[in-house]
């Protein structure tokens, strides 16, 4: 049952990514070259809707939150590595799967590379334990940092993201 639920949510996710152009090399590179803002606006709008929605659900005790630990140095370095891979392939770990689904053969190589990359990390994991425990602040959110109820941050944060998407960010050709 849980497996079928995963499949159903995944199919909706894949369809949205594909229909919204997030699995398009041209749209992703347009975003990273700061020319085509569509994908950035798509992501910011999605985050805006989800931030308020998730914390509204949490108010009703209906949200299964999952806060990842914040280890600043490790996550910073990881993000820099990921960003290079993002620009070199033009995909990310989810959008390459959607791109493969729409018949883009190069995306299969990104999936294959991803399996190799995850395997390399599994082999090298002992070397990175120090980095993961360095500057590790645990499962913290900005609501914890400021000591306020999350919705007090969620609402203005979402408003800023929507302002960026709907008013401020413009394509730049």
């Amino acid at each position, binding site marked *: 049952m849980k497996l079928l639920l995963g499949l159903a949510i995944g199919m909706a996710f894949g369809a949205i990514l594909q229909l919204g152009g997030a699995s398009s090399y041209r749209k992703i590179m347009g975003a990273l070259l700061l020319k085509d803002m569509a994908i950035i606006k798509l992501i910011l709008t999605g985050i805006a809707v989800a931030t308020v929605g998730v914390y509204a659900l949490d108010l009703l005790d209906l949200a299964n939150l999952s806060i990842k630990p914040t280890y600043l140095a490790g996550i910073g370095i990881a993000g*820099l590595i990921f960003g290079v891979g993002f620009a070199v392939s033009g995909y*990310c770990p989810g959008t390459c799967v959607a791109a493969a689904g729409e018949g883009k053969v190069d995306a299969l190589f990104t999936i294959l590379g991803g399996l190799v990359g995850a395997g390399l990390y599994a082999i090298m994991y002992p070397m990175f334990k120090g980095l993961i425990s360095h500057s590790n602040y645990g499962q913290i959110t900005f609501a914890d940092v400021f000591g306020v109820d999350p919705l007090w941050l969620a609402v203005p944060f979402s408003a800023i993201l929507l302002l960026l998407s709907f008013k401020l960010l413009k394509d730049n050709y």
Partner: protein
Amino acid sequence: MNQEPVLSWKVAGIALGLLMILATAVAKPLGVSTAYVNTDAMVTHTIAPDKAEANEYLSKYGEKNSWSIDYGWMLVIGIFFGAVVSSVVTKRFRARQNPSVPDMWQQNFGSSSQKRWLHAFVGGVLLLFGARLAGGCTSGHMMSGISQLTVGSFVFGIAIFASGIATAKYLYRGKKL
């Protein structure tokens, strides 16, 4: 050939946000990159069970679901089939001149499939190495993490765009877009 996406960013963005809320209500926030480790764990466990169990990282994920598929793995399989359905229904399946090479790539770097495959592969290695070191990718960290106001996810989001923009600008230096 119309290359613009079928849905506007507004419609797709709102749909994505609603799906993230639904996923958090019925299961957990969306995430993709763990499924790659899970696949590695399953494959290694099938070929050499002792090697898989001896690897701390693979067994951390493998043992949780008895070296088998789980909700998150099915979600990624779903991404594939969801895109198959939506691209076939909207007649966008393989909508490029060459299914191996994006049109924008071909205009700037030529039509060699092998050259494009190499970049796609190397990019994939870096993506998942980075995602596993961070503990999540564009979906689990950036989208789900930032929407839960997780501090580390903001750091991840800023870092991927900083190096992604720098790398993209370098690759396309002097190119006409």
